[in-house]
């Protein structure tokens, strides 16, 4: 996954309203009106959030003119957690090596002190 894509997903997830929208959509598709209800928000305000989510590829919207249901697109979130897993592996691997290296350093220290 490219940093550009990651960046737009991070941005989209940075807003609590958008995260709530995604959580709601995880239970199934919804109309914009249904999504707006729990947020006491105007439809245009909700639409703005949906556009950000759509641009980030996190949701897709139906093409029916009247009822454009929003659906969660799971792929980008999976990609995001895959990226975070890779990053965690970098640190886990590095810290494993650090552990071994510190033992070597400690032995070296003791040796220095004896001489």
């Amino acid at each position, binding site marked *: 996954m*490219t*940093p*550009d894509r*990651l*960046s*737009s997903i*991070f*941005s989209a*997830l*940075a*807003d*609590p309203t958008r*995260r709530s929208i*995604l*959580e709601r959509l*995880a*239970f199934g598709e919804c109309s914009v009106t249904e999504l707006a209800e729990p947020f006491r928000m105007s439809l245009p305000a909700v639409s703005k959030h949906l556009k*950000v989510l759509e641009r980030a590829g996190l949701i897709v919207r139906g093409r029916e003119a009247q009822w454009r249901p929003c659906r*969660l697109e*799971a792929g980008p*979130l*999976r990609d*995001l*957690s895959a990226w*975070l897993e890779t*990053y*965690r*592996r*970098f*640190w*886990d*691997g*590095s*810290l*494993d*090596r*650090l*552990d*071994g*290296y*510190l*033992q070597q*350093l*400690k032995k070296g*220290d003791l040796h220095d002190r004896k001489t």
Partner: protein
Amino acid sequence: MTAKPKDQLISDISESKTDMTPTMTIVRIFDAPRPLVFEAFTNPKHLVRWWGPHGFTTPLCEVDVRPGGAIHIDMRGPDGTIYTMKGAYHEVVEFERLSWSNVVDDTEGKPSFELLQIIALNDHEGKTKLTLQVYVLMSTPQAAESLGGMETGWSQSLERLKGLLFTL
């Protein structure tokens, strides 16, 4: 690529931003004194010996360990790919705490997002407890407006979402 966005970004990271929820937390206990662990993180001679997972090497390591000082580490993967980490230190408290941020560039080489890494060292039953926290900070213009929202932490929501995704 201009240096301006990076400089701006780094000055924007105030202490208050770090009460966001970290994207990643790793805790490790090392059987070594705190000063030695700190030394391993701040002396390039030592850094090159352990930086990167097994099978990786570190052909370049330049660290100017003081607030605002530069950090540049190149890591070379087993297949020869070079992974560059470039950024700046924020907090340097000897033997206790170290933080730096590095910008992840997009495919056009423009800053895309930024990672803030915080290392905290504590004494723990004669050993050293290391806590690593990684935060994602934004650098794109559309992201700047939403930085405030980060304070509630999206990583917990992400965890919840991941749980829900299994039901799809």
